[in-house]
């Protein structure tokens, strides 16, 4: 196509920082009409930030941003919409109280024609169009039900429907398939191809290379917030891309020192929570790293949360080092010797507006308080060695955690839990959204801890991480453990197969 | 609070200046925004100006047992010569009033008395018996001395109200056997509450013949409701009211007759009594005599009380002559 001469979207050396956190150093991207462009990079590489700059969610700090050749600068997402940019954000953002249809058309609901109904929303037309969209995506969702209570997958589909319905010239999809099952993915791809053939420009972000190679024609790699390379998919290989993403050979990224496996530390039997997971039984032994793999939304975090007791569960037992752990009682779990580094650092792992020192000391207060009294001094004193141990980068312990980079925040969370001297460490997405350097440190630390006989339950959506770190891989699908694979037998293929519905659909 | 009038003079030592030679008299009504007290305090100001004292009016914007306390305390701090109070609560103010008296301030109560042990003098607008009797007489005349009547009072814990009501009950029982007091409701001296309570009274007691409201806010609100209701003319309304608030309703026939003393005179007398106390002409002992400007001579009666006179009846024929 001639349009290919001037790219629809063109970014050069775009940067964006949040305080000290440099999310995007120099992001560059050029997408032509009639093409599907893959954007890949590790967690925290800056992909979503780049997307949000294009969408007008964030104002870029520097760099050039052209749309259809024209320099643009969006102050709000409304402006980007008007300019013909549609975005599927990584995290679904829906209005729980509003109907599915209203969620799709919010801000641009079709108005009735005619004098009287001129300012009136044409609900009929709206529902009809929503229905048509779901037809096209091949899913059952009642357009009239509220978004409240939808699964992550359904939420993701609604985001997709919303973006498609804009019929924009540029469609950006940030990990749209993360929570989708095989046939849902297939339909999404079908729609994407038809859009490409209509001459739209598409950007596709995913951590799954098979999808990238199946769908896209061009691939841009990012690392640590910077542009690395752009190649035609046909002319590159998975290993080349991975090498560029990681910036070194894959081998030395996961320094797993094999520790000798000891006694059973965690014993979970028939754990069940209606609607989340059921019949979950597994054990973790001293010195063992057990990986929980699966799709986003599979329920791994829910399982972890139930085991640690932040969520209640309906049935089952949790035993730690032979002693039963009280249900729905994090304090009890901590006393029993559990530590839990949750998935969402900003909301769950840290009091993000609290100081680094107080965060580190937050779980061991009872220990450091003298005759019931506690002072900032004693907290900082207790926190200091652990900050040292993990080499947290901060210029003082009273700095807000919010001012730190993702990686350092993760270190603070880990420090806070190591300070409790636990028997079992549950760690959910240990390296999500942190830079490569820190990532390696975290991995080294984990295997080191295992080496000293700590039992570790690691949840990760990153196959390489699971395969690299785990002595044993448990695969979770729709709230059930569908496979238990030893380190040596684990391959991307059999783990992915156990994790996705597609396999059983095929059979 | 002060009306916008004297807030202009605020900043200079206003009602303060206890040190100066001019007698400083501060009026403290139950609450601001009540035209009855507007008039009485105006009377007080008139008197204070006559004898060349310094007048101030302060007061809370809501009625409550201790909403007046901070104003009494302040007056004590300012060391005003005399404080003229209409008490919201006979007990709640005592500590503050006594503190003020210890600080050398003479305390005169008017309209609504406090515990005699914590004031120097009470200016009684009319004897409780006199007030109760005139109200009962009026309602009896208006309803032909038989039928159901109800009382619309102020706050449920307003001392003078409750005292009058007690005597009215007695008076009805003794001299008006055919009149039945069926209900007493409390409008808290708030227009809307009184208004809605009146509505409730009428719907609760279908054959109600008359309403007595011994409070100026209450009677005005009740009149307002009656004037727009079917009961207009059928249900008699009387009590204590000010001519300006009631004029419309007397003229349109909602109300035939109501009573009140002249609140202006009451404030006027209170101011002169305060002056007399400050100058040491009287101590509050029974039999003490003093002259209250144009009102003439008065004598202190039992338990340090001075009586203004008998309540005055207002009706179509004379209401035009009054403006307060």
């Amino acid at each position, binding site marked *: 196509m001639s349009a290919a001469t001037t790219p629809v979207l063109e970014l050069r050396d775009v940067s964006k920082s949040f305080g000290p956190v440099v999310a995007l150093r120099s992001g560059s991207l050029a997408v032509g009409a009639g093409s599907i462009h893959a954007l890949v990079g590790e967690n925290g590489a800056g992909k979503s930030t780049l997307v949000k700059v294009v969408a007008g969610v964030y104002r870029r700090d520097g760099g050039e941003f052209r749309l259809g050749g024209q320099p643009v600068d969006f102050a709000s997402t409304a402006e980007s919409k008007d300019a013909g940019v549609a975005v599927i954000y990584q995290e679904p953002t829906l209005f729980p109280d509003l109907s599915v249809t209203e969620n799709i058309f919010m801000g641009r609901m079709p108005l009735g024609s005619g004098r009287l109904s001129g300012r009136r929303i044409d609900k009929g037309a709206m529902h009809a169009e929503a229905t048509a969209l779901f037809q096209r995506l091949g899913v059952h969702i009642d357009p009239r039900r509220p978004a409240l209570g939808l699964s992550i997958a359904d939420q993701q589909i609604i985001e997709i429907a919303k973006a498609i319905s804009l019929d924009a010239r540029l469609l950006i999809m940030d990990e749209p398939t993360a929570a989708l099952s095989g046939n849902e993915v297939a339909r999404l791809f079908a729609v994407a191809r038809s859009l490409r053939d209509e001459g739209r420009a598409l950007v596709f972000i995913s951590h799954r290379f098979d999808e990238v190679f199946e769908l896209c024609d061009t691939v841009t790699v990012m690392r640590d917030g910077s542009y690395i390379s752009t190649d035609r998919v046909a002319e590159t290989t998975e290993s080349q891309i991975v090498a560029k993403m990681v910036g070194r050979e894959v081998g030395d990224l996961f320094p797993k020192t094999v520790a000798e496996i000891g006694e059973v530390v965690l014993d979970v039997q028939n754990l069940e929570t209606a609607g989340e997971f059921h019949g979950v039984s597994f054990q973790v032994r001293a010195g063992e790293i057990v990986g929980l793999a699966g799709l986003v939304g599979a329920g791994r975090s829910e399982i972890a949360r139930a085991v640690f007791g932040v969520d209640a569960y309906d049935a089952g037992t949790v035993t730690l080092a032979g002693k039963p752990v009280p249900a729905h009682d994090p304090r009890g779990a901590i006393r029993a010797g559990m530590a839990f580094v949750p998935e969402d650092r900003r909301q769950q792992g840290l009091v993000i507006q609290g100081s680094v020192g107080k965060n580190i000391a937050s779980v061991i207060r009872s220990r450091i308080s003298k005759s019931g009294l506690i002072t900032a001094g004693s907290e900082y004193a207790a926190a200091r060695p652990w900050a040292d141990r993990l080499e947290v980068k901060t210029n*003082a312990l009273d700095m807000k955690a919010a001012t730190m980079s993702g990686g350092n925040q993760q270190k603070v969370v880990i420090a806070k839990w190591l300070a409790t001297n636990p028997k079992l460490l549950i760690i959910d997405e240990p390296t999500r959204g942190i830079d490569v350097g820190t990532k390696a440190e975290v991995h080294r630390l984990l295997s080191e801890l295992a080496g000293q006989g700590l039992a570790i339950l690691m949840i990760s959506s990153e196959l390489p991480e699971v395969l690299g770190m785990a002595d044993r891989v448990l695969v979770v699908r729709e709230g059930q453990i569908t496979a238990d694979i030893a380190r040596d037998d684990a391959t991307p293929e059999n783990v992915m197969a156990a994790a996705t519905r597609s396999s059983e659909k095929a059979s | 609070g002060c009306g916008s009038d004297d807030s202009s003079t605020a900043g200079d030592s206003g009602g303060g200046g206890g040190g100066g030679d001019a007698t400083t008299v501060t009026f403290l009504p139950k609450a601001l925004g009540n035209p009855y007290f507007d008039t009485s305090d105006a009377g007080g100001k008139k008197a204070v100006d006559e004898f060349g004292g310094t007048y101030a009016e302060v007061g809370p914007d809501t009625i409550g047992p201790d909403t007046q306390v901070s104003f009494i305390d302040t007056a004590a701090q300012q060391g005003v010569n005399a404080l003229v109070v209409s008490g919201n609560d006979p007990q709640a103010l005592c500590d503050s009033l006594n503190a003020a008296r210890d600080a050398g301030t003479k305390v005169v109560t008017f309209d609504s008395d406090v515990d005699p042990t914590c004031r120097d003098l009470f200016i009684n607008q009319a004897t409780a018996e006199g007030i109760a009797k005139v109200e009962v007489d009026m309602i009896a005349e208006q309803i032909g001395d038989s039928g159901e009547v109800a009382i619309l009072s102020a706050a449920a814990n307003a001392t003078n109200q409750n005292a009058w009501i007690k005597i009215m009950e007695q008076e009805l029982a003794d001299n008006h056997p055919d009149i039945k007091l069926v209900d007493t409701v409390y409008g808290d001296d708030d227009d809307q509450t009184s208004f809605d309570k009146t509505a409730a009274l009428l719907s609760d007691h279908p054959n109600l013949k008359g309403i007595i409201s011994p409070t100026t806010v209450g009677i005005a609100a009740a009149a307002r409701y009656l004037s727009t209701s079917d009961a207009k003319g059928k249900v008699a309304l009387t009590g204590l009211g000010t001519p300006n608030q009631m004029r419309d309703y007397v003229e349109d026939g909602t109300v035939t007759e109501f009573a009140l003393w002249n609140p202006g005179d009451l404030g006027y007398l209170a101011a002169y009594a305060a002056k007399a106390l400050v100058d040491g002409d009287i101590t509050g002992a029974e039999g003490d005599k003093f002259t209250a400007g144009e009102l003439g001579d008065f004598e202190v009666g039992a338990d340090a009380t001075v009586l203004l006179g008998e309540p005055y009846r207002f009706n179509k024929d004379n209401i035009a002559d009054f403006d307060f």
Partner: protein
Amino acid sequence: MATTDALEPATTRRGYPSYSRNVVQRLLLNREAAVIAALVVVYVYSLVSVDFFDGPLTTYNILKEYSPILLMALPMTLIIITGEIDLSVASTLGVSAAFCGVLVKEHGVDLTTAMVLTLVLGIVLGAVNGFLVAYVGLPSLAVTIGTLALYRGLAEGLIQTDRIAGFDPKWQDWPTERIGGTNVPQIVIPVAILAVVFFVLLHFTSFGRGVYEIGLSPEAAHFSGVNVARTKFLLFVMSGLIASLAGLYVMLRADSAATDTGIGFELKVIASVLLGGVSIFGGRGALHGVIAGVLLIAVLNSALLLSNQGSEVIQIIIGLLLVASVISSSFLSRFRELLPRRTASTNQVSGQKSRKAPQ
């Protein structure tokens, strides 16, 4: 390296400083300091230029009148720091006075016993709020608007037309008698003790740390083992208890209990807490700031009354101070703000989950 025991903290290699700012900055550059400064300025100004403010009665009256507000502000501070609110304190105060009065005057209970029973009532009323908010998970704003009406209604039902007065002088005089020759009423003794207790509780105990964490991020607090529900429950119980204590004081001070005792106090209390630098979104504030906030309002009130200003001027000033305080802090936080969206709303996102006051 790998041999060092990871479960043992390393011996300090790079000693982290505890504080990024020096002592002076830390002590002076915050809301609390600003409020205290304002208090001092207003006080000094009044001393020199308001007639009679330097008189002996000023201190006495201020303390006598504002003790109840000060009392109720103590637990209210903690409650607002957790992101909740208690609008029912004044009604609790009212019903406590009524309850005690009725016990003494109509059931002949002796005053001491009656007061103990009243404090128990306060605990119960607080527990009702606490249960509905902490365990049923209802928004405290709505719940305590309900109990605001309910408790006041109970007071009216209890007392009706009675006017309860004439309590045993030995109790009745105690709170307002002066300590020695000073101008300080004795009620200040319990108030001061409680102030210290709450100050320690909030600033020097694990419980207090939990209070702040709940305000900043209920989820994170829950994830690190803070018992969010129990903490909130206890706070509302304290609020009820203290409010009924304040009720007893008001009753004794006035030597009377009436249906409208303490009406409207709740907003005064909340206003002074917010003036004291506590964020309505929770997570921020300190008790000394709040105490200064209460005293600031008290001193302003006294000074304005002494210069014969009406209560309306005080209202206007309180109102403007409130608005100014939030606007200033919103400016500050907008400059300091690191996140693209203001924390305020990110706190709010989870709607029902985060039971914060509407922004």
